[in-house]
């Protein structure tokens, strides 16, 4: 009962964080406040190999989390891939990830819970991990609580990303509009045609449209290092 109301308050705070980095830190701080464990770690992974962002409440948690990538396996990676919750009651006697278990047992990690950061969307964002220095430290209730926390963490992360994307998109529209206007005036073409030109420059040079537009807006000319699509060489002084 007490844990439920505690969870409710903690989860409300989770959604109130604006900065993505702070949000992740709030997740691990919440885990430690919610469950009787020694530390927590969370990581957002891209392609299951590349850490986009991570947060930890202590250095051991960080090592335990990162070792999984180095040693090519561990409960967090498996939890992420399979969308499951993995509880280890004794790292010395668990044989599922022998290299990892042996390594972390050596620096004191004896029990752990690993959960996928998922919120209904089948793609997992990463994982959430807690550990204890004691054997058999966690029970089914703890695992359930971590799972709920991970669910809300995933929502908070997605939320943060969306908001950041929205504001970035609006600023992009401004600079892309400006670049369109420049190209419209330089070549006496319509807005749609100007957009097509910018798009083709973006594709030809493998640069983001927003970045091409920013350069055009700043220099008042098309980037001079790419051939004019379809018609020969474009000159940066604007004369075709």
């Amino acid at each position, binding site marked *: 009962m007490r844990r439920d109301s505690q969870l409710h308050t903690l989860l409300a705070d989770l959604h109130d964080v604006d900065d993505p980095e702070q949000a992740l830190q709030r997740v691990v701080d919440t885990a430690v406040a919610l469950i009787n464990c020694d530390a927590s770690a969370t990581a957002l992974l891209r392609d299951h190999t590349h850490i986009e962002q991570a947060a930890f409440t202590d250095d051991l948690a960080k090592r335990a989390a990162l070792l999984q990538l180095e040693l090519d396996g561990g409960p967090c990676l498996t939890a992420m891939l399979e969308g499951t919750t993995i509880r280890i009651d004794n790292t010395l006697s668990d044989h599922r990830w022998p290299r990892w278990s042996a390594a972390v047992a050596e620096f004191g990690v004896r029990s752990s819970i690993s959960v996928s950061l998922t919120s209904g969307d089948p793609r997992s964002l990463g994982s959430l991990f807690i550990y204890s220095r004691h054997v058999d430290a966690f029970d089914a209730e703890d695992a359930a609580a971590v799972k709920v926390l991970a669910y809300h963490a995933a929502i908070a992360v997605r939320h943060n990303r969306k908001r950041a*994307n929205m504001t970035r998109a609006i600023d992009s529209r401004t600079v892309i509009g400006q670049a369109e*206007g420049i190209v419209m005036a330089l070549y006496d073409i319509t807005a749609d045609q100007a957009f097509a030109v910018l798009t083709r420059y973006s594709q030809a040079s493998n640069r983001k449209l927003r970045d091409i537009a920013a350069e055009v807006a700043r220099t008042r000319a098309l980037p001079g290092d790419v051939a004019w699509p379809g018609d020969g060489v474009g000159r940066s002084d604007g004369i075709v």
Partner: protein
Amino acid sequence: MLSQTYIGRAPAEFTRVQQFTAAAVDAFDVDGAALTIIGATGGRLLVHATDTLSFELDELQFTLGEGPCIDAKYTGSPVLVGAMAGPEAQARWPGFARDAVILDVGAEFAFPLLSATVPFAVLQTYRHDPGELSRDHLAAGMSLLETSKARILHELTQHLSPVVAHAPLGVNDRTEVHQASGMVAVQLGIPIDDALARIRAAAYSRHVPVSAFAHDVITGQYVFR
């Protein structure tokens, strides 16, 4: 003569925004409200305005580059103007306050919507009759704001995130003004920011909204030399 087109009503999918602005009018006891997003690079996207005058006030602030909404966005705090005709407002926004009074706006109250500490949008409200917000109305309105903002943000992110810049949003994102800035920058050989300032000044001196004037620049009816 350029006409003032009311281009401020959000498309149907922005149901929460429309409900919110209507509820804000009741809660704050004002005559109109608008939700606008002020970008970092000079853009201003009007998501929804409940009435023409709200749209005009938004447009006026965009034309002049000054006003309570802009201050609300940059300070992260509400900007409450009970006396638009009073000396404080007139001194703070000389161009805007004067024109707002001419438009029969006696008071304006602007509120930033914050995600944690970062403003992501501004609620603009106005009243014909001057006078501060009563404590009860201010409390009711702020309460509405606090309870609505998460859902508003969600709705905005759902419909305003397309990466493809040219996808029509259906909202007044003033693309033509930015395009016109680019054209004028080339026509006069000046930086974009200066071009926008020139467009604003020209629109203002002709007593037309900058969006409408920008349209004339784009269609070639007006060429800067």
